[in-house]
């Protein structure tokens, strides 16, 4: 009798517990779904509208189930549409961004790796202080460097050129890549380097044979970070270049904010997607490392 009473009580308790658990699960998934819809909504809007016909958009609004289909907006945005006076679409700006982002990313990542190597494995008197000074650049707002950069670019005859922007992004990116690589290389045991030195390996040999083979995880982080950061940068692009020399972000702002193009939703949508595609692609390919890069600095 006693046992049966206990058992019934136990079963009832287990049942409420199970119900509470199920409700909790439903709550968690409902919460995540609501936010996922909010997060994906703008993406859906812009993708859908880049494939709709303009008259149908203006009639039904941007937020509507697509009732027409057209691929016309994409080639127009790419090669024909008029942005700030020139009617060649945004393909030149896309190339500009590519020509700017790829070299700047590679140079700043490579220099960051070398600097990190020196600052972690070949320390000299005062190198810690120099490291702190270098990383201050991470926090500097771009606005404070505008006038000096204008002067420097002018004197190097790099005003309104992609090379000028590459220079800016390399110098600006150095502090960041150095910080990340140095913090990563610190965790490589010094004994490894010491042993190599005793065996007679020099600075470069140790870098090629020991440090570089251990570097892919951190290099992926710096490359992703630099690529997305430089591709998405707007301030320097709009200040130091104009017209056909501008990177894509500047062209997109010109396109999206101009009164003349205000109603060309289909073309603007396609152009915005073209501009967002490379960093998104990089992010989807290396998302895992991207997250790791984001969290690395702060969680430590």
């Amino acid at each position: 009798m006693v046992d049966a009473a206990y058992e019934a009580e136990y079963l009832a308790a287990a049942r409420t517990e199970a119900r509470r658990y199920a409700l909790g699960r439903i709550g968690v998934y409902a919460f995540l779904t609501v936010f996922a819809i909010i997060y994906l909504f703008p993406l859906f809007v812009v993708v859908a509208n880049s494939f709709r016909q303009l008259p149908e958009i203006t009639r039904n609004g941007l937020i509507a189930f697509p009732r027409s289909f057209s691929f016309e907006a994409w080639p127009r945005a790419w090669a024909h549409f008029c942005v700030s006076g020139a009617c060649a679409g945004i393909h030149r700006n896309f190339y500009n961004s590519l020509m700017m982002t790829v070299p700047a990313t590679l140079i700043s990542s490579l220099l960051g790796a070398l600097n990190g190597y020196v600052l972690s494995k070949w320390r000299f008197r005062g190198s810690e202080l120099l490291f702190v000074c270098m990383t201050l650049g991470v926090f500097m707002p771009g606005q404070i460097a505008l006038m000096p950069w204008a002067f420097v670019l002018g004197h190097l005859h790099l005003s309104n050129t992609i090379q000028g922007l590459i220079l800016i992004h390399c110098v600006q990116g150095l502090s960041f890549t150095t910080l990340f690589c140095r913090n990563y290389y610190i965790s490589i045991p010094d004994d490894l380097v010491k042993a190599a030195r005793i065996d007679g390996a020099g600075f470069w040999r140790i870098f090629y044979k020991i440090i570089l083979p251990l570097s892919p995880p951190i290099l992926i982080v710096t490359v992703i970070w630099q690529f997305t950061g430089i591709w998405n940068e707007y301030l320097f692009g709009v200040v130091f270049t104009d017209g056909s020399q501008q990177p894509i972000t500047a062209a997109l702002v010109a396109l999206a904010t101009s009164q003349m193009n205000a109603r060309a939703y289909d073309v603007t949508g396609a152009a915005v997607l073209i501009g967002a595609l490379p960093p998104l692609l990089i992010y989807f390919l290396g998302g895992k490392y991207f997250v790791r890069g984001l969290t690395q600095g702060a969680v430590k």
Partner: protein
Amino acid sequence: MTLFAKTTTAMEPEAPGWRTRLAAWTPFLVIAPSLVASFVYVFVFCGWTLYISMSNSSLLPSYGFVGIQPYIDLWSNLRWKIAYSNLFFFSGFYVVLAMLVGLALAIAIDQRVRGEAIWRTIFLYPLAVSFVVTGAVWRWIYSPDVGIEHFVRGFGWSDFTFRLTTDRNLAIYAIIATGVWQSSGFAMALFLAGLRSVDPDLVKAAQIDGASRFRIYRKIILPTIAPIFVAVAVVLLQFAIKTFDLVVALTNGGPGISTTFPANYVYDLMFQRGQINIGAAAAVMMLAALAVVLVPYSLWLVWRRRKEGRAYG
């Protein structure tokens, strides 16, 4: 380049040759260009802009010293006051909301949900996209003609109004909402990494003691990851102070001047109005705002590291 390596392999007993000496200098030679570039970038550029902010520059930089007059002009300018109060208002809401949403998402994902990678990807992708793109798309969604207002009216609610970006008192909320949309995934990623770093034995012990889930979070997990709250807040504040492209793409500072931000003001004064010295003064104020956030933070970090060093060393 392998030359340097060779010299050290052959333990020559005689006096060090030029190769050995060069090898000893290699690390310094490698880092020197970056050091010079960073030094110029950080110190010379800041000093330069500081000087320009106290000069008589107008359309072009010039170097006649006028003291703090540009700062007086700056602080008596209505548009700058709006920009500055916007920054405070925006930063408060943006940082708190992005952290709240980020924390809620992180905790939800931490409940051993299925398809964690998919959820994470959805919440983080806005971060890979530029503020320019985000601003352009949300500008549409807020637009009365084709956006949410048009959408809701389509259901027959014909006097529904939703005009964030065209109302001078509400436009700032559009910027806050969009900023939170873009950055809360970042907060989520950091919080999630923090939640994962909490010692599972600690949580298990509390569960055995019969603590509820809510209580475990409030009393054990969240206090353990307190440093991450500070880190996220600092990084978000930094984003807030540098806010520029988002405003340009979303409202372009309008309606009127209601959503001017310090960074936009700097750009306008330097490149549109030819008042370079006042623009530089505004840039220096931005740097000052960053210093107010970052200097105490780094001091706190150093203090914490010392304390930990003492506790374990």
